[in-house]
């Protein structure tokens, strides 16, 4: 077996070890390279900045625990911006598996940094099943869909919720999502109730959502850990996402290296086979 063919048959465990190392090394020895900010992230920031201080916003956290490494830094960064502006946050989740528990923890943590009070500055409505019905039903009366918050307190006993009967009293929706929920928010709530919205989505979803940004159905977009790192830069509050981007750099270079080596090996082996066949024919 020639060198090029051997290069194409490297054991997967060698590849896995290289991948592990390319993530671990930058965590131990950070490079702290600045992340360039994309126009969509700037628009996201501007959309929150544009609403008056003290306004009420909707904060759907429609994420599974599997993507927390991407969605949590985005949610934390967006919440920090919101609480800095004293916006009052109504959170909920359309993902039953963990969504309401995660947002309870993340909201509590960021609200704690800013000394915000549950019930007056923020509230977690929790989860209700069948997202399309939830999204439409809240347009008429939130209390019909959510008789209580996640903790079981009646909405009529929560000061913030007494001011929010439906979408009309909310200035913006900040969607954090790792699934098709953004499509539903855009096509049901933005289209039908005219609610302005921005979205923070996992990187794998970002290309599709850019079509909504270009159509002005979304006012801004954060795409995955990179989006979170860009937002941390705009807020001047570097955190986990910024640190993660060093590993991201190294592993991208490694994968590109894999692709290049794989292709060189493929073409070199093909040429060698063709030359061998020509030799036999001669």
């Amino acid at each position, binding site marked *: 077996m020639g060198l090029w063919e051997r290069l194409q048959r490297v054991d997967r*465990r060698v590849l*896995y070890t290289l*991948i*592990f190392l390319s*993530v*671990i090394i930058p*965590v*131990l020895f*950070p490079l702290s390279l600045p992340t360039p900010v994309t126009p969509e992230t700037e628009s996201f920031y501007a959309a929150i900045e544009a609403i008056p201080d003290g306004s009420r916003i909707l904060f759907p956290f429609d994420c599974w625990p599997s*993507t*927390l*490494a*991407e969605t949590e830094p985005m949610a934390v960064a967006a919440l920090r911006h919101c609480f800095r502006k004293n916006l009052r946050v109504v959170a909920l989740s359309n993902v*039953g*598996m*963990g969504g*309401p528990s995660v947002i309870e923890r993340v909201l509590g943590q960021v609200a704690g940094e800013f000394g915000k009070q549950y019930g007056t500055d923020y509230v977690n409505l*929790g*989860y*209700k*099943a*069948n997202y*399309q*019905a939830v999204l*439409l039903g809240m347009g008429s009366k939130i209390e019909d869909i*959510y*008789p*209580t918050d996640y903790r*079981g307190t*009646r909405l009529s006993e929560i000061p913030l919720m007494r001011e929010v009967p439906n979408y009309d009293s909310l200035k913006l929706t900040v969607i954090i999502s790792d699934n098709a929920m953004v*499509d*539903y928010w*855009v*096509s*049901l709530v*933005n*289209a*039908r109730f005219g609610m302005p919205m921005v979205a923070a989505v*996992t*990187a*794998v979803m*970002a*290309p599709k959502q850019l*079509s909504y940004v*270009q*159509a*002005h*159905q979304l006012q801004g977009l954060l*795409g*995955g*850990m*990179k989006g979170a790192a860009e937002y941390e830069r705009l807020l001047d509050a570097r955190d*986990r996402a910024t*640190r*993660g981007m060093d*590993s*991201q750099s190294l*592993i*991208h270079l490694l*994968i590109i290296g894999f692709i290049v080596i794989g292709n060189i090996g493929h073409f070199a082996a093909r040429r060698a086979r063709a030359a061998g066949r020509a030799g036999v024919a001669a």
Partner: protein
Amino acid sequence: MSEFFSSPFVALFPTAFFTLALYSFLYRDNPLFKLAEHVFAGLSAGYYFGLIFHSVIVQQLWLPLTQDGEWILAASGALGLLLFARFIPKVAWMSRLSLAFVIGSTAGITFIQQLHGLILPQVSRTLLPLDSVNNVLIVVGVLATLIYFYFSKPHTGPLGWVASGGVGFIMVAFGAHFGYTVMARVSLLIGRIQFLLIDWLRIGS
């Protein structure tokens, strides 16, 4: 000694143990991985049970029924219970009524949602003035993609040319999508490594 037991190393040990147990699959399938896999599946199903009990049965049904006298909700509760008729062969067909209610309503909502919320705004934003290269590329790209996925006529002649142009656009988009997918998957790994090194072992920054 008490410091040791209250340290992150001990407090986060269960999390780290199951994280490493799952990663052991990268070497090969093994009993530790299987154990973690089944613990995970059990906890997930149990999570749903607890959540639905509080969020739906208590908060959406029991409280409004008993405290506010909203008896109309009894109908929804009954429809929900009918779903379980599928476990009794004689009356199993009745669970179709509840299913038909949810599927039918969802279909009604989806019909309007797709036309009004997606097709109209997306089409109207494609009607761009052809005064720049980018606008021309967007209009041509949307049309070529739609034609590529139009299978009611064979892709020959002019239709074939446009469809092969569509392939070019689609390859660019899929390449971009691949780049973003790599970024997404790598982020998840970075998250777990940050947990193991920074949160658990307290090394790295």
